């Protein structure tokens, strides 16, 4: 797999891999959700993200070659989206951090023009729904029972160190990254405080995470996720499905 690293390819791979990998994680919830309504909601979000991934990857090359035949080191998604689902609170924390980011990012991209603008313009409506879903659950869990409050706080704390990477500039994306970070921090703070929770105060990144996913350096669970995702496709080289 030799994706040409033009700025457009870099940008589409970063955004496309984010959507592909998070979609996969949400797909793992199917049949395991806490209420039937969440079976529908999580599958719905997974499907939206998969649709976005397909559009974005197709800007770079063949969507299936890119999804199924790249090794771990060639994926450009942020480490946040590859984090295992954990309990429902951790999944919601991941959704809150990511969908707030994605919504603000796509709003900027939709108005900035360029090849990603049409996708961003369409996806921003889907992502607004994902963000609402994550916000409402953050409120319910944070301001629900003592147990749900503690779990939600643990989810936010555990994933905090993966949030800094979201604001590492991606080549080819006409985005003001520092404005994006400020807007994100303000939006997430608002929700977290309304949910009677505390925004983690530690570093948003570390030497081991700074921009790492975007450079193809991932966390251990990611390779296992890809092994499962790619196994069947790789077992039948050249086959059509």
């Amino acid at each position, binding site marked *: 797999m030799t994706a040409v690293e033009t700025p457009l390819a870099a940008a589409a791979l970063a955004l496309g891999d984010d959507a592909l990998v998070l979609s996969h994680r949400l797909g793992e919830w199917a049949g395991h959700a806490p209420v039937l309504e969440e079976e529908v909601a999580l599958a719905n979000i997974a499907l939206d993200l998969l649709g976005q991934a397909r559009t974005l990857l197709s800007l770079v090359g063949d969507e299936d070659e890119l999804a199924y035949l790249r090794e771990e080191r060639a994926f450009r998604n942020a480490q946040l989206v590859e984090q295992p689902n954990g309990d429902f609170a951790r999944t919601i924390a991941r959704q809150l951090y990511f969908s707030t980011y994605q919504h603000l990012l796509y709003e900027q991209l939709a108005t900035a023009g360029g090849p990603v603008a049409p996708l961003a313009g369409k996806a921003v409506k889907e992502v607004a729904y994902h963000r609402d879903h994550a916000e409402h659950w953050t409120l319910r869990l944070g301001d*629900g029972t003592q147990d749900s409050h503690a779990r939600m706080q643990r989810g936010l704390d555990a994933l905090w160190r993966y949030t800094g990477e979201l604001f590492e500039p991606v080549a080819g994306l006409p985005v003001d990254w520092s404005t994006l970070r400020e807007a994100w921090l303000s939006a997430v703070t608002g929700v977290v405080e309304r949910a009677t929770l505390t925004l983690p105060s530690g570093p948003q990144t570390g030497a081991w995470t700074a921009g790492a996913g975007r450079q193809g350096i991932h966390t251990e669970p990611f390779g296992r996720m890809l092994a499962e995702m790619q196994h069947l496709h790789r077992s039948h080289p050249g086959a059509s499905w």
Partner: protein
Amino acid sequence: MTTMAPDTGAQDTAGYEAAFDAAVAADERIEPRDWMPDAYRATLVRQIAQHAHSEIIGMQPEANWITRAPSLRRKAILIAKVQDEAGHGLYLYSAAETLGTGRDELLDKLHSGRQKYSSIFNYPTLTWADVGAIGWLVDGAAITNQVPLCRCSYGPYARAMVRICKEESFHQRQGYELLLALSRGTEAQHAMAQDAVDRWWWPSLMMFGPPDAESSHSAQSMAWKIKRHSNDELRQRFVDICVPQAASLGLTLPDPALRWNEERGQHDFGPIDWTEFQEVLRGNGPCNDQRINQRRRAHEEGAWVREAAAAYAAKHGKATA
């Protein structure tokens, strides 16, 4: 029909019963606030609940392949299908609730084994082709069973079925198309498709239930127009539909006795292994334990989430949640 339920003495019941019988005879719909015989209500609760449970348990064998789907297009189709099944479960629980039961109570009965789900979902999905075989055969059998339910005498159930059948037909075509792609693909893919059809054919025929002679609920359900056709009639219809479809798929059906009967104008087919059917119903199928345990685990592990939502709603009012 708009007859209200009686709240006075038993001497009035005969009049209501006559009105109910007349409405059923005239093919009118019975609605939730209408009077209905207790046994009619109980039969419907049993049937609709079992149907709803089947949608929910039926997500598992297919969800088993979401993370391994071999192309992004197929993965999207599969996620959408599993999502639809959860939605069908929700419609059906709502329909059951119009009969005076609650979703929590029904789920309890599923989890404790007091209510059943379709025996077909106790079979494992061992290869990707099984996803196609489920779409083509299992959904195909379900549609054959369910299309007549769109005319069922109980209004809420009939209306749920109209919507469900539309989506199921779509899934069925997608399953067929998946198998066709495999059948026309590499030798290994073709073999995978044939193996899946070989494993799913007989269990699909069992979905129509026991032979007419042994079907305990059939006669009453037909009299009430909950059911419109007998098990054996629908099974025969299904076989007749599948034979030419298998031929166009380039796949065979695993039944040496299967052949066209000119005289009957229908296909003859071999005997069904009813011992296997009874074993699966008794809980001894390949995946009975696994399916029910996963469902219970999802429910138990989700209890704190449901409690949190309830606590939040109590604090803030449901409208803000």
